[in-house]
């Protein structure tokens, strides 16, 4: 399998993603500079976390118009896998590949800590190695991760199984106190209707080796690898 990690000016989790894929999971992986319009040859594209374009205007609002995004939008609609992590999730929302928007965290603070998330749907290329209800220990690091969408959109997401992860306590209860940022429905990650585009605020690349305190995020990448090549 071959992964492509997109680098925008201001990305800062690109190297973590690259390291996880290359050194831990022994996969082929390239960096893709955001001005490179071609993404051919990659089975999965990763939009990493960071502060693309300094978060100016709105998070992800300017990165969304980078040359590489045109190909990513086209290819995502053809079914190629695209995983947006943190700022990558924000870019996917701005690009319209996923519904909704991000608001500032309810407590107005930048939150950087381990949280727990519950797997809501294991029938996606990103979660196929999990069981529904599995709880992952995984870190978040964001100032604008309060997921918002109108009521109709939330209902549609629920109905179609597009909510993939919810913030929960260690037992898997999605309680208000387990919600770090005020996201509607404790939403931590969603996918598109076809399931090939996933956006998530927590960082699987920061929880893929024991030395970092958790290996739970690794299963997400292993799921993508298990899914296999994109044809």
């Amino acid at each position, binding site marked *: 399998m071959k992964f492509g990690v997109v680098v925008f000016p201001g990305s800062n989790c690109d190297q973590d993603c690259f390291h996880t894929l290359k050194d831990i999971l022994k996969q082929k992986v390239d960096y893709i500079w955001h001005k490179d319009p071609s993404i051919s040859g990659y089975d999965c594209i990763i939009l990493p976390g960071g502060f693309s374009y300094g978060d100016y205007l709105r998070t992800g609002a300017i990165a969304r118009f980078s040359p590489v995004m045109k190909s990513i939008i086209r290819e995502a609609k053809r079914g190629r896998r695209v995983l947006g992590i943190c700022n990558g999730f924000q870019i996917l929302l701005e690009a319209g590949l996923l519904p909704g*928007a991000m608001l500032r965290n309810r407590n107005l603070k930048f939150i950087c800590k381990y949280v727990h998330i519950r797997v809501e749907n294991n029938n996606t290329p990103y979660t196929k190695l999990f069981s529904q209800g599995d709880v992952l220990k995984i870190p978040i690091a964001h100032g604008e991760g309060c997921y*918002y969408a109108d009521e109709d959109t939330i209902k549609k997401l629920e109905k179609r199984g597009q909510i993939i992860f919810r913030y929960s306590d260690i037992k898997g209860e999605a309680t208000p106190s387990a919600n770090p940022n005020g996201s509607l429905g404790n939403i931590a990650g969603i996918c598109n209707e076809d399931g090939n585009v996933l956006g998530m605020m927590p960082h699987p690349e920061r929880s893929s080796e024991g030395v970092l305190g958790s290996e739970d995020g690794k299963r997400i990448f292993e799921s993508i690898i298990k899914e296999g090549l994109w044809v």
Partner: protein
Amino acid sequence: MSKTAKIYVTLKKSVLDPQGNTVKHALNSLGFKGVQDVRLGKYMEIKLNGETKSSVEDQIRKMCDKLLINPVIEDYTYEIEDE
């Protein structure tokens, strides 16, 4: 000829504004007991080429729809002024 567009961006009524709430509480605690609600937004000033007000309006609306505003969470109004 150039004109100046003043664009006011606000969070939609349905969207909670935690910054506004915090400012409201600060004002209340400073003795401004009559303050009932505060909503914070953004202000943008754009100087641009344009002969007529309507041609400038057209451009501004396109800019807002394409980049400046996220219609999921934000509303906007604008004024056009002669330079």
